[in-house]
């Protein structure tokens, strides 16, 4: 990727992500991550030139919420703007912050993603995405069994077991991440016995509705070297949106955005084998079926091979190719923050600061992906040294 200036992450903050946060209002929840990022970076608000805000306003039913959130994100009398793209919002904020710093327009930019799902009805909010004339009658929020059907058709019970194993892996990881929302002890059997939503997708496969926020501070090369926190560099980012008509021609016939985004990132950065060259991956996994399926696309490997990796435990924290040591989206999902949390967690892994859920190896390259809209993917590569 062409970047006129190098961009580094110099501060990372997250709120506690929980199912119920009646103790805070929206700006207060935003302030939890903003103050955490300021603490982490050892910076003050006066060091920040521009504040980016993102969430999906129909979840809480607050119009132009960046206005109210100036009380919590520090944007009062500062420059800033609001950028949103649905589930991908956090990943887009990452791109936007990188673009604004690389452009030279600002030196230090803070991106803040937010959602307080308990204040609205999430599935209603997502259903409102569909075209009011053609799609809204049949939209079912984000719940679909389509990907699982393809796996079970091809690989039978072994696939169902693999999806359950992915979910259990996420739960085990979340237990090591005190900020995660769902920190539960579950077995594969619990997953496969949980309530059926849309066969073969079950309740425990699916991401929760969380309340939380995430803030990341970005800066240019010169300042990154002066600021106290260890820099994590943005190597590249890619955005792949798609037309709103889902699956025209069927999923078998059109490349998935995950595949396209991964391919583009690897080609641009000379990555031949992601399994060897990427140390950890924070994936936006709205369900364990999608985590399983998209692992194929990001790894550029066929289903059968990925199934073997699942069975070997490659995707566990101690495994060869850890996915979502944080517990991922199936454990924590404040939607406007979710994709930014992927970037934050990937950056923590690069810094070696992920605490109990740190992968036990020297992380030089990490990948983060966002998912949203009508099957969109926005992905980024983060590195220890550029």
């Amino acid at each position, binding site marked *: 990727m062409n970047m006129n200036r190098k961009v580094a992450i110099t501060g990372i903050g997250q709120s506690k992500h929980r199912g119920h946060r009646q103790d805070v209002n929206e700006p207060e929840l935003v302030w939890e991550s903003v103050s955490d990022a300021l603490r982490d970076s050892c910076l003050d608000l006066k060091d920040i030139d521009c*504040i980016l805000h993102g969430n999906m306003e129909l979840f809480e039913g607050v*119009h132009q919420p960046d*206005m109210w959130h100036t009380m919590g994100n520090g944007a*009062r009398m500062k420059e*800033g703007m609001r950028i949103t*793209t649905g589930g991908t919002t956090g990943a887009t904020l990452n791109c936007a912050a990188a673009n604004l710093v690389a452009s030279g327009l600002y030196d230090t930019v803070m991106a803040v993603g937010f959602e307080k799902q308990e204040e609205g009805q999430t599935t209603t909010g997502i259903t*409102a995405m569909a075209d009011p004339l053609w799609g809204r009658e049949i939209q079912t929020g984000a719940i679909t069994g389509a990907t699982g059907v393809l796996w079970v058709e091809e690989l039978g019970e072994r696939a169902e077991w693999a999806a359950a194993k992915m979910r259990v892996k996420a739960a085990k990881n979340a237990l090591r991440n005190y900020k995660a929302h769902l920190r539960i002890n579950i077995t594969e059997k619990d997953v496969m016995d949980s309530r059926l939503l849309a066969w073969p997708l079950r309740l425990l496969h699916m991401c929760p509705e969380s309340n939380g926020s995430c803030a990341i501070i970005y800066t240019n090369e010169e300042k990154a070297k002066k600021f106290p926190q260890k820099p994590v560099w943005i190597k590249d980012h890619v*955005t792949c949106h*798609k037309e*709103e008509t889902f699956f025209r021609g069927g999923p078998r016939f059109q490349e998935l955005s995950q595949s396209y985004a991964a391919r583009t990132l690897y080609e641009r950065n000379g990555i031949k084998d992601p399994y060897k060259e990427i140390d950890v991956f924070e994936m936006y996994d709205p369900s364990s079926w999608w985590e399983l399926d998209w692992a194929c696309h990001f790894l550029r490997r066929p289903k059968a091979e990925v199934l073997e990796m699942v069975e070997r435990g490659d995707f566990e924290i101690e495994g060869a190719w850890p996915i979502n040591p944080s517990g991922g989206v199936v454990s924590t999902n404040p939607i406007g923050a979710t994709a930014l949390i992927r970037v934050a967690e990937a950056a923590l892994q690069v810094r070696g600061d992920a605490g109990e859920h740190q992968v036990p190896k020297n992380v030089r390259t990490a990948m983060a992906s966002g998912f949203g809209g009508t099957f969109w993917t926005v992905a980024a590569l983060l590195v220890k040294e550029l």
Partner: protein
Amino acid sequence: MTRAAIVAMAQTRFEPRKGNERVQEMVWEVVSEVREKTGLGIRQKPGDIDTAVTCSDDFFDARTISNACIGDLVGGHFGAEEKVAMDGLNALFYAAACVLSGHSKVTIVAAHCKESQAVSRNMITYAASDPIFQRGVGLDYLSAAGLQMSAYLHRTGATEKQCAAAVARDRRHAAKNPKAQAQSPVSVADVMASPYVCDPLKELDVYPVSDGAIAMIVTTEDRAKELTDKPVFILGAGSCYNDYYIGDRDLSRDLALSAAGRRCFRRAGIKDPRHELDLVELAAQYSYQELLFLEALGLVDDGHAGRLIESGATDLGGKLPVNVSGGMLAGNPIMLGGLARAAECFLQLRGEAGERQVPGAKLALAQGATGPAAQHHIVMALSAE
């Protein structure tokens, strides 16, 4: 360092209700037009459009992710499309950042808003009030503006008549703008005789409900010179958020706009805006903001804007023409207020503004506002050179 430039612009005619068009159709009209003007494809060959920045509002569209239905019109299918969810001038600014970052070579900006789809515009802006304190008193953007107008008139001694003079001026200008919605002139007496909608705001003090779309193409200086003989350069911009609770602000002043203006002038190298600027386009949704914004930007002494407007100095042909497009008071939807101002600057700086052309315009200022009583401002300086 390279500069960002606008090479093409298209806007729909602004209308009170485009009942025969969906938002996609409005956007397609303007996107097709800028693509025809520049001959640019979408990622078909090097130097084509590679990135899109859209601007829309989920509440007005009644759609979560209101950009999802626009993406494929601007190259978002297997491509980059990002939505700026506030006044469209911010989208233009972000497009400039995409180009200056080196990540994009050519970015398309596409903004739309159909205010007519809402049963009541006030119902939507009421939802911008926090549910804890403000919704209980029924605060929406109109009532916030009413309070701001009272505070402004009280402190400065400006009169409702002077505000009405700003409406009359804008409507005189709009009569010369074929894209404007309200092209029929109104007099100060007409404004004063129109019914109160939120004391002291009268019906003609308030921008009308409007539908429309705007597209622009933004690129680097080098590429711009290949695409047009008359690129318009973005010299600099600045923005600022104010306090959210209007009780926390001195409503009679606009400190956020003053800060945004200073940031813009510094970056654009403008030392004496009163004399250097050839024209100013302000996104005033309400008549009194025409006065307040001029003062906040330092283009006239505090408390003197009313008299300046009455003197005709801000008319086309005056020493500092303001809103020669007709401004928002002649009809632009809320998300397009600032972008429509930049659109007018683009036409003026290229000498393509027809009957309302400011002769020899070289340096123009566009401003956009978002939020209750204009909580957030962005100011951008544009130049033909």
